[in-house]
């Protein structure tokens, strides 16, 4: 989905303004928003790509004006509402209306350190050989899917060179639709900055993007 989340190359947002103090959390609610988002991931009711799409398909004005943890919270609520794990009324009143649905796993405090250290790798055994080789010129496809994709708009149609083959990784576009992991070879691709952003970009600069084979064609 071409949405506001796909920000690369936009020029309207002004200068970067780091905070002077940079607290890890701005208030307790941010701590709990992070913890709930990470914690609910173990429930197995959605995957990483589904949760990314839940956030990026929030109403554009919400996405643009709220802080990132507010976006995470809204995404979490949306995922749970969609799955009947929570009701609008429960969110509004805080009163339990119906019992919880079954979840895959509730991680205990004791188990959590190991669960966090384990992470959730997305590399998978390859079935096919990679379709592209290091050093090869490729063109990122001009696709505009309505659903989730990790091919940013700014590289579409642009030619780059494969710098590394990163293994066979879960393919987000289908995974976000709940249509399976369909692992695809992932490539790190070097795009010349002027190829991507035209003559206004600085000569010699490079933009690297990680692209799955399904996003590419030989060029």
């Amino acid at each position, binding site marked *: 989905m071409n949405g506001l989340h796909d920000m*690369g190359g*936009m020029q309207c947002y002004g200068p970067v303004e780091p905070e002077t103090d940079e607290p890890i959390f701005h208030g307790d*609610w941010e701590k709990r928003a992070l*913890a709930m988002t990470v914690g609910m991931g173990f*429930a197995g009711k959605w995957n990483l790509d589904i949760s990314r799409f839940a956030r990026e398909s929030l109403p554009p004005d919400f996405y643009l*004006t709220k802080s990132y943890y507010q976006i995470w919270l809204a995404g979490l609520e949306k995922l749970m509402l969609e799955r009947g794990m929570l009701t609008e009324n429960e969110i509004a009143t805080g009163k339990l209306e119906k*019992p919880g649905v079954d979840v895959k796993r509730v991680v205990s405090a004791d188990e959590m350190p190991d669960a966090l250290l384990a992470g959730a790798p997305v590399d998978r055994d390859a079935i096919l050989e990679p379709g592209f080789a290091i050093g090869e010129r490729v063109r990122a496809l001009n696709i505009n899917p309505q659903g989730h994709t990790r091919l940013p708009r700014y590289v579409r149609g642009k030619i780059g060179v494969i710098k590394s083959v*990163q293994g066979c990784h879960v393919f987000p576009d289908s995974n976000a639709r709940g249509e399976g992991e369909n692992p695809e070879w992932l490539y790190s691709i070097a795009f010349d900055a002027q190829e991507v952003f035209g003559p206004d970009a600085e000569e010699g*600069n490079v933009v690297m993007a990680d692209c799955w084979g399904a996003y590419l064609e030989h060029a």
Partner: protein
Amino acid sequence: MGDSKKQDHHRGHDHDHTHDHSHWSDMDLKVKTLESLLVDKGYVDPAALDVIVETYETKVGPRNGAAVVAKAWSDAAYLERLRENATDAIAELGFSGRQGEHMQIVENTPDVHNMVVCTLCSCYPWSVLGLPPVWYKSAPYRSRAVSEPRAVLSEFGLELPKETKITVWDSTAEMRYLVIPQRPSNTEGWSEEKLAELVTRDSMIGTGLALTRVEASS
């Protein structure tokens, strides 16, 4: 690339609701309510949530990455292992897990400066740097890092030599990038611990350099 000062025009107009801090006590209430529901429904153990908070508040942060960088500077064999398989080499130091499952290092040289962004959301190498700062997740950084990196760096006070070209790594997949900044001069024979003190978080994102000896002592 354009002068970022020119963009100031857009800030003259008064507006009212971006990241309104006065909402934050409301947010505390809202989030408490949600958490009670999740607990009551049996979806999460609140003590386990405490562990998550504690982990990212006190255990996992940029000192992890600084240790990796300092060791990379000091130990050629380790650097080689980082180049070969950064995920495994970083795990040697006990750092692994969420948002660090697939690590790659990118090494700064006098010719090429590396800088990391996630234009599509807020992907960041948690296992070595902790949680991302607000600016990393902000629209200005996400939008302009790829198209005008030098202007963005100047907003961090970093003016690179014109000859140094910039490579920007957009974290569009689950690969997470750790910048290995150039080792400051006159640090021969320093211990890894002492070197690690020179390694700032921003230097590992690429929006800064490692501290010089002088900066570190002041």
